[in-house]
């Protein structure tokens, strides 16, 4: 061993990109290696799909569309929202273990750690969504979307995942423990996805709840996806959903990097 190193000088765009790739690879490996998580990615969406389809399906009047067609957009968006909590957990876990010290003491773009977790989230959510749509086909899901519309659906869902995952990363950075992340995340996302048009039409809700449910961002995303999938009127939902998601991303990304840089671990 010679006491010298052959490390490239200052970080460049190229090294930052390569750091991101290495850490994306790391987070993707986590998906496969973490069996318990895989269960959540594949089995949970199937369970929700079947439960909602058959338990609520007969009792909820969704007007012109069948319940399974109505449900698909809602359950996909809900699954994606809960899926983003994985980023919080991963970030909080990294912070409570020593590994974050190692990353920060390397001559690398340490924020790439966050990029890795967020990108893995997008992949994980894509798998869940695919599983749900396939199961949906088995239980009567009958979409009318064209290929171009499916691409738009994918685009909106990716934007939504990015927005949720970056917000989740912030939560992971601020949390005091991994357990806290789980509870706070659950309490934030549960009302947002249920006080929406995910599972029932908003018509029957009390006035104030209805105003909230019809205008909050999650409903905008659900309505946009639903319109593209099964041909309900899209109105302004498409672009409002896009603006919400892009807005959250623009705010959350710099804040997440800032918190990551300044966070004194332990």
């Amino acid at each position: 061993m010679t006491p010298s190193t052959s490390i490239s000088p200052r970080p460049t765009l190229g090294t930052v990109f390569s750091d991101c790739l290495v850490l994306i690879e790391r987070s993707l490996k986590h998906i496969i290696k973490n069996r318990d998580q895989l269960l959540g990615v594949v089995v949970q969406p199937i369970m929700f799909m079947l439960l909602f389809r058959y338990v609520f399906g007969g009792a909820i009047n969704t007007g012109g569309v069948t319940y399974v067609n109505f449900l698909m957009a809602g359950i996909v968006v809900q699954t994606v929202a809960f899926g983003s909590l994985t980023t919080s957990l991963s970030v909080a876990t990294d912070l409570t273990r020593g590994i974050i010290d190692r990353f920060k003491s390397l001559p690398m773009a340490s924020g790439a750690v966050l990029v890795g977790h967020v990108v893995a989230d997008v992949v994980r959510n894509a798998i869940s969504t695919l599983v749900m749509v396939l199961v949906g086909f088995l239980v009567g899901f009958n979409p009318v979307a064209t290929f171009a519309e499916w691409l738009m659906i994918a685009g909106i869902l990716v934007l939504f995942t990015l927005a949720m995952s970056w917000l989740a990363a912030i939560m992971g950075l601020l949390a005091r423990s991994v357990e806290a992340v789980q509870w706070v995340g659950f309490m934030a996302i549960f009302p947002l996805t249920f006080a929406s048009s995910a599972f029932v039409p908003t018509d029957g809700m009390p006035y104030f709840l209805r105003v909230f449910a019809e205008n909050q961002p999650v409903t905008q995303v659900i309505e946009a996806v639903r319109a593209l999938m099964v041909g309900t009127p899209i109105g302004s939902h498409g672009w409002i959903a896009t603006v919400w998601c892009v807005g959250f991303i623009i705010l959350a990304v710099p804040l997440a990097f800032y918190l990551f840089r300044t966070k004194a671990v332990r």
Partner: protein
Amino acid sequence: MSDNAIEIKGLTKSFKKVKVLEGINLSVERGTMLALLGPNGAGKTTTVRILSTLLKPDAGEVRVNGFDVVGQADEVRRTIGLTGQYAAVDELLTGRENLIMMGRLYHLGIARAKSRAEELLTQFDLTDAADRAAKTYSGGMRRRLDLAASLVAIPPVLFLDEPTTGLDPRSRITMWNVIRGLMDSGATILLTTQYLEEADKLADRIAVLDHGVIIAEGTAKELKSRVGNERLELIIGERSNLEEAIKVLPNTDLQIHKEERRISIPAGGVADVSAALTSLQKAGIDVESLSLHRPTLDEVFLTLTGKEVTEEETKS
């Protein structure tokens, strides 16, 4: 460039209102090992975290390899390896995957990262476990993997923060051998420890840190001479006369506990021990048991500060 790989002048650091470091001055000559010895809460980890750019100092000048840890953090990071108290490895990845990932984050290139990982797995005796997830490793293996990860880029300066705390005696000895190997390769090492024995066995120089202040610095020999040497303790058997035993032993710094029939004499080396035992044997005195006592960290502190080691709740 000066001959010191690590240079600390007037370093202070507080967390909120708690002063953790109160003006530290230290330097470590290139190619040598300094042990920073102190109890929990003395400020050892804080010092290491500042040296490895994880924390910013409040005041003072800190240079590693001639680079300023605040102004030239990137340059510092490129020339150091850090092994913390908590094994900083990805528990889901295998040992090999961990090392390759580190190599790529040091921008060694994929091919070099892979070959370096193999070298380290062999060097640290982890080849058999290379394809198992790190979470299945024992404590000792995890520490070795962690140390290997900090050596990926062959850094000229290494910080080892309590590398053996919590290890069983066998793993500790393995770790010591590994650390000695690093010394032979010419690296400069700053090691923190709570164990006087560890500092004594490994380091060229020892600095004793207490409540954020360096209270003593020197070679192990110099420090020990301030504390007192090893002592031989003898329990004299019931059949023999205690007074007679005392008579035949050298009477410098002799300590006697009559009720326990215990005599303690200074023992600088094997010669002292064998001389004492020979005299007792010649006089026909029955020795029930004998033991050697080394000065402990407690005794170092007791001598240097006049007070016992106290457990602190503050960040260490």
